[in-house]
Each structure stands twice: as structure tokens, then as C-alpha cells.
């Protein structure tokens, strides 16, 4: 059954204004003396140890007000763009000033995704001769087909073997692998390989356990996902939010995968592609999600955390975790991809 949507702060994403990216906005701001001096002031306000006191300062407030009228206020970033980290740093330098205290959901610094799943299906059938139709027969192992398709493409094969060999390399009996390097290699794979390949491997549909186990193993979870201890999800979220990239990817996931009770698919703007993209965008960070078991049909994904030790924040923790484990939008999107169906948007 579909879980009830958890918050009403609806954010169906469409109808954005055309935006400049933050690197460009920063250049525009730098060319103007008033903007650039206010921006410098704000950065100093945010860098202070006690951020909140600093922000209460009159000069900081004034800087923030001026910057809200500048191109920096509306700027966004593109996933996998050149200087992505720099772009996100600029984005958060303004937006951390605007949101005092922690919000459960944060606005995504990324531009909205306009492509649809059907585009991928079309491309996939061009790229691979056989097995292009994701619903060939119930018997075939789609995850194996996806691996084969990747190996037939030089770029996919190269980046895949790169992350596999890095994530598989045992350092010592107590250290399974170099997790940091493994995460980096996974990020490169998902950033640089077209989603026709990466989604097929990550979201392939399965009829039996062997296939589902392969699907679970896609990101080499013993290195990239599992850890000695499971942290509390809210502690993990705090950790993720200290990192600009992780924070942005999480915000993007929330923006694109949050269950909505106003759409047929439960996804914001019925856009499966956007949800799957922002899910894949979290792989290779502290909040890396994965399939929790090799159940072929009952799909449950989660980051490596649980709600033990939440104290009085248990409700909030469960709410956070359920956006992964019991999210009808995400589940519908994964299933729709596996079945090769998309919502028909044209009337």
C-alpha cells in the first residue's frame, strides 16, 4: 500500500524561471563593486564560529538583503557541471544565511530535470541491439543484460571496472577497502556514464534472487555502503549536511523524490527520471543508499543508518528514513523503470 505523504510543504517542481548558474552569477557579482563587497561581507558573517550571532549583526543583515536582489540569489547548479563544487559553495554561502537553523527539507541547488524516462528507453534501444526492450521475457536476467550492455561500451566498461577494482581492493583484515576512493570512483561512474547504462544496472527489474543479489551488488555495498556500525539517521544527516556536495544531493533527492499526494505517480510533477537521477546522485556520499536485501520484488532501499538512539527525535528520524524505505514515489519510479513504462505526459 502507498504510504501517506509525510508533509504538505508541496514542492512540485516546474515552472522555474530560467536561471544562471552560480559560478556565472558570481562573475556577474564580482564585476559590480556593491555586490562583490556585500558578498565578501556575507561570507565573513557565515565563516564566524557562532554563525547565528554573526548573522544577527546589522551589517550581515544588510549584506543579505542586498544580495537577495542580485543574480546570486536565484542561481542554481547543474549536476556534473564543471566546477560543480565551486558552484555549490557559492549557492550555500547565500542560502545558509537565509535558512536560520536546520530545516527538514531544503531547496535543491540543482536545476530541475526536464527529461523523461521515455527518452532513456528510446536511447537504450538505439545503443544496444539485443535486450533493448526492458520487458523481453520474464525469464531473462535484466541485471545481467545491463552489465553486458555496459561492457560493450568502452566508457561504461572503463569506469565500471575502475570502481569495481578500487572498491574490491582489500587493505587489511580490519579494513575492507579504501572507502573514500571507492566513493570517488562510484561518483565518477554515475556522473560520467550516460544514464541509459547506469540506470539499467541500478534499477533493473528482477524475478529471482540471483538477479536481485546482482542488483544489490551493483555499488559493491560491502565497501561503499556497509560499515561496522549503523549510525543514527539524524546524525548521518548532520554529517552529510556539513559537506556541500552531500547536502546538495540530499536536498535534490528530497525535491525530486518526495512523495506527493497530488500526483498519480506520487512523484513531484510525475517526473520519474528526476527522482531516479537524484537517487543515483547520492551514491558515493555519506548518505549512499542501496537495496537492503536481495528480495526480487519487494524493493526496499535505505541509507546505512537506523533510528536507534533517536531519543525524543524518533518521529523525525522515522520520517526521514521513510523517505527512502517507504516512499511510493521512489518505489513507483524504480518499478516503472524496470517495467519500461513511463507516465504518458502528452494529452
Amino acid at each position: 500500500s502507498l504510504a501517506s505523504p509525510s508533509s504538505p510543504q508541496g514542492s512540485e517542481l516546474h515552472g522555474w524561471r530560467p536561471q544562471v548558474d552560480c559560478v556565472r552569477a558570481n562573475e556577474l557579482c564580482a564585476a559590480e563593486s556593491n555586490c562583490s563587497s556585500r558578498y565578501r561581507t556575507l561570507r565573513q558573517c557565515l565563516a564566524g564560529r557562532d554563525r547565528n550571532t554573526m548573522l544577527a549583526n546589522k551589517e550581515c543583515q544588510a549584506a543579505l538583503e542586498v544580495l537577495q536582489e542580485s543574480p546570486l540569489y536565484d542561481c542554481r547548479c547543474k549536476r556534473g557541471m564543471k566546477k560543480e563544487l565551486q558552484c555549490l559553495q557559492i549557492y550555500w554561502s547565500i542560502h545558509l544565511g537565509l535558512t536560520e537553523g536546520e530545516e527538514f527539507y531544503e531547496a535543491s541547488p540543482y536545476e530541475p530535470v526536464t527529461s523523461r524516462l521515455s527518452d532513456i528507453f528510446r536511447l537504450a534501444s538505439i545503443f544496444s541491439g539485443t535486450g533493448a526492450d526492458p520487458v523481453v521475457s520474464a525469464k531473462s536476467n535484466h541485471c545481467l543484460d545491463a552489465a553486458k550492455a555496459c561492457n560493450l561500451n568502452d566508457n561504461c566498461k572503463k569506469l565500471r571496472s575502475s570502481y569495481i577494482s578500487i572498491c574490491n581492493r582489500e587493505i587489511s583484515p580490519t579494513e575492507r577497502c579504501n572507502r573514500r576512493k571507492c566513493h570517488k570512483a562510484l561518483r565518477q561512474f554515475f556522473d560520467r556514464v550516460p544514464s541509459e547504462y547506469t540506470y539499467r544496472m541500478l534499477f533493473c527489474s528482477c524475478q529471482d534472487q540471483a538477479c536481485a543479489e546482482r542488483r544489490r551488488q551493483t555499488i559493491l555495498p560491502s565497501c561503499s555502503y556497509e560499515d561496522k556500525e549503523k549510525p543514527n539517521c539524524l546524525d548521518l544527516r548532520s554529517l552529510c549536511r556539513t559537506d556541500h556536495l552531500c547536502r546538495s544531493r540530499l536536498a535534490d533527492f528530497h525535491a525530486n523524490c518526495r512523495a506527493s499526494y497530488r500526483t498519480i505517480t506520487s512523484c513531484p510533477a510525475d517526473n520519474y527520471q528526476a527522482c531516479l537521477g537524484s537517487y543515483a546522485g547520492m551514491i558515493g556520499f555519506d548518505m549512499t543508499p542501496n537495496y537492503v536485501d536481495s528480495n526480487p520484488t519487494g524493493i526496499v532501499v535505505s541509507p546505512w543508518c537506523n533510528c536507534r538512539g533517536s531519543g525524543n527525535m524518533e518521529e523525525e528520524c522515522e520520517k526521514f528514513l521513510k523517505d527512502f524505505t517507504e516512499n511510493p514515489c521512489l518505489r513507483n519510479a524504480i518499478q516503472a523503470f524496470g517495467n519500461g513504462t513511463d507516465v504518458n505526459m502528452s494529452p
Partner: protein
Amino acid sequence: EAPLGLYFSRDAYWERLYVDQPAGTPLLYVHALRDAPGEVPSFRLGQHLYGVYRTRLHENDWIRINETTGLLYLNQSLDHSSWEQLSIRNGGFPLLTIFLQVFLGSTAQREGECHWPGCTRVYFSFINDTFPNCSSFKAQDLCIPETAVSFRVRENRPPGTFYHFHMLPVQFLCPNISVKYSLLEGDSLPFRCDPDCLEVSTRWALDRELREKYVLEALCIVAGPGANKETVTLSFPVTVYDEDDSAPTFSGGVGTASAVVEFKRKEGTVVATLQVFDADVVPASGELVRRYTNTLLSGDSWAQQTFRVEHSPIETLVQVNNNSVRATMHNYKLILNRSLSISESRVLQLEVLVNDSDFQGPGAGGILVLHFNVSVLPVTLNLPRAYSFPVNKRARRYAQIGKICVENCQEFSGVSIQYKLQPSSTNCTALGVVTSPEDTSGTLFVNDTEALRRPECTKLQYTVVATDRQTRRQTQASLVVTVEGTSIAEEVGCPKSCAVNKRRPECEECGGLGSPTGRCEWRQGDGKGITRNFSTCSPSTRTCPDGHCDAVESRDANICPQDCLRADIVGGHERGERQGIKAGYGICNCFPDEKKCFCEPEDSQGPLCDALCRTII
């Protein structure tokens, strides 16, 4: 957050708003519960209306609150143009939901900081239409809010009213529809409705340690202007919030642990563990280590330097009256903070003060003292009186002859022993010894094959000396090695290393570095794909390959490359942790000089499979 004050029973409220709803329409009630008797709430609205992701949209000109009852109502009708005005400011997002902040008390809280318990958010979903015709409502819409409702009640606080059932706009605009509620559960639960069942209250103070979740069920009966009645059941959870009202106790009543430090003397060794139980779940994980402190009480600087305490809390469930209630178990481990020398000897009592600093109870109830009785015993080094081993005259260099070990050496950790051989005659110094760091034992090996083959060296006599590196303490034993067998000339054309040989016959005909008999040994694998038990040729199947590059093997890459080589492996294989082949396909042979190993099936025909192809197919 202040321990006392009023708090909202929810952190978020929801209601629908329609276009042109008349001024005066009541919207909903917010409720505040008391932390102390006699507190009176005073509600205050935040100045602004917010949109998606806390975008500030506009000053709130439309909604007002009754500061004593908590009733929110429309002060001014919202027309289409007002909505459009708000939409424009919503950062490009379609306007669906807006919210207002409601604060408690007159304290000037900053507008930006709205957090439960002192502030709650009231969300309004905007329906871009006028209020529907009364007859169009289904019973479901009249009884149950669109979004699930849940409540927060603090334990040990005065009871109070926390919910108003009725959906006020419908009541106001459709007075002819009668909606009545009643609570379903029996008298056992601490909740009640007033006679008309408009509002729900707690009957007495709740205790989280007895039960932390209730699911309230109510019946809603709708009777329209027509005769037919409809009933709908609704349920909503009430969560009891914890405060630190339980003192820590010893788990199972045990507050003392005794431990002996003898052979394990390494930094990081866990000496003893004690558990402390606390029925509270606050402070939570993020705060816990800061609020739940432990101090090693001991004036002795030796003890302070030598031991440390590690605290690891874990949430557990306990059964109380058939309810599962969360609680916390704290594990305190006494750990060696430095490696201790073997001469160190002490008996001491260590006390660790545990302080649950948030504990609200009387006196020093939050404080516990853990007792550790620790005996640090000295280790005396002893070797057996005499060792005797045979050695084959044909043995090659680095052939392993036997092991020597001070008493209990395999249990040692953090103790470093060095073994040395003192020959009794200078002519027959054929052997060497190395210490294995893993088990602190010494391995005897052939170091000089020429000396071994001298006719006068049939009996090699040595004194073995074991020295502790740190204290320089020593012990010794005699060692007699008898040389057996006859020597034969080495075969011509054989490689230096056994591992080079790929087939059984050539393996068993040749000798190689490290072979105790002068001949290599063949290990026949099980042939089950990529396996740890692969076929290979080695100096002695007892030591090579065993997945471990030991102290002797590591002296020369030719002895056992299967365990020791850091090299390319061609063919189906699984790499060892640091070096060597963990598992291989078919026969594995190695060329140490070229730093290459090959693993392939006996009659290799198909193409070789590398790590990648194995993971794919």
C-alpha cells in the same frame, strides 16, 4: 530548550484554504500543554506568511489568532488577486502550501527560529477554487483531516487538552451537517473526551517508561440534513516524550569487575567491561557522550596513564506491562592506554565515576561509581630445557626446520621477543632464526646449505636465547639439530623457485628455495573454479601456500611467491589482502623475477578471465 514552559501538542497543523472564504471563518485550534501547574498559554502569530522552503511571501494580513483560546480565523477574505500576489513571490514554485508560525508566550522569539516546543507551524493548502457545496462533502472529508495527525505529550507533566476534533470551516459554512465524535477505547487509557466530545485531553500525567506510544481511535458520526447517518473511524498516534527522570543503575546489579592483565599487554586491549542501564532515552545519540560523562578516579598517575575508559551506549527495548519501551544500555570498557612491559606488576582498584548530568531526580542520583579490580601480573620468560629437531641434508636454503616459543608465546600481544642462536662450534653454523610477529614464536631455517653438507656437521648444537626487546630480559635453551640423509647433486635445469613449475612431474623432480627435503611438493587442487585450494608447486605444502607470507618466506620472493609476491596475476584469481594469491583458477605458477603469476586450468583452451570478467559474469 528550557525545562519548563508551555509546549505545543503538535509541531505542525494543517488546514485547507479556499478562495473567497468569508471573513470570520474559524480555521483551527492550536493547543499548548503545560509543564507546570498554573501556566497559562498566550498565543501569538508570526508576522509573515511563508511559502515553499521558507520563502517569505508577505505580511500576514488575513489570518488572526485568539491569544487565549488558540483559535485561528480569517480576518479578511482571501480573493484571487491576493493569491496571485502571493504566488508571484514563491520563487518560481507553484503555490500549493503556505504556512504561518505560532509562538507561545510573549517572549520575543526571533521570527526565523520556529522550533517545537515553543513554536509550531500552521500549514494551509491552497485550493484554487471557492468553498465546495456542502452536499458535495463525503463523510471522510468531514471527519478526517487530509494529512495524518500525531501528538506529542511530555511525560510527568500536568494533564491537559491537546486536540479539537471538529473541522471548523466545514462546521461554520455547513451548519446543517452534524458531525459528532466519540473516543473508542475503554477506561484503561489515560485519555478522555468532554461530554460533547469536542476536545481530547489527557486524564493524568503520563510516564514514558511505562508506555511511549498510544494509538487513539475515535468514531465520527455524520448526519446530514437527510436521514442517513454515516460513520468513519479515525485513529491518531500520541507519542510520550521522554525526560531524564531515571537514574543509571548497574545492569544486573553488578558494579564490580575483576580482571587480570598478563599475556595480552598491548595498547588497546580490553581489560574489563561493565554495563550501566538507564531507562531514559534522553540525551539522544548526538548529545549523549557530552552529557553522560565518565571520569577515571585515581590519584595514581601510573593508573591514569595506563588505563582509559571507553563508553559505548546502545538503545535496547525492555518489556513493561506487555509494552516495548526503549531504554539505554551503556557499556564501559576499561582499556589499556599503552603497552605494558613484561616486568610491570601491580594490583590496583580503579574507580570510574559515571555521571548522567541531565538527571532531574534528587541529590546525586545521577552518579554511579564503577569498580574495576585489576591485577597486572609480570611475565617470566621460559623456554623448554632442550629442543631437538632433525634436518635433511638435502634441505635447501630457507627450508623451515621447526619452531621455538617461550612459554605462552602464542597468547602474547604487545610483547616483542627476539630469538638468537649461539652456535657451540663456529664451523657448523648452518641455521638461522626469525621471529614471527603474529605469535611471537621463532622459526628455525636453513641459512647455509654448504655448512649443512660438511661431513663433520652431523649434529648441530646451539644455545637459543630469547630476549624481550623492552626489558632486555633473557632466557635460554639448548638446541640440537641432527642432520639426516645423504646429499645428492642438484638437478640441472631446475628453476630457483618451486613455484615456476607448472606440471606435477617437473615439480616433483626439482628442488627449489625453501624445500626441506630438496624436492618441491605438488599440491593438487580441488578444481572447483576459483578456489583457495588451487593446484600449485611449492617447497613444502605445510607452509606454502597457506595464504600467509611468513617471516621466512618474506626473506626471498623465490621461496613462496604464491603467498608473498606483489605482482600481476593473469587468469582467474582473487588477490590476497596485501600480497599473494588468495584463490586461483586451475594451476597457479609464478615467475618471481618477472613479478608475474599465472592461474589457468590444466588444459587451457578458452580465453583467460581477469578480475573484471569474473565480477561481471
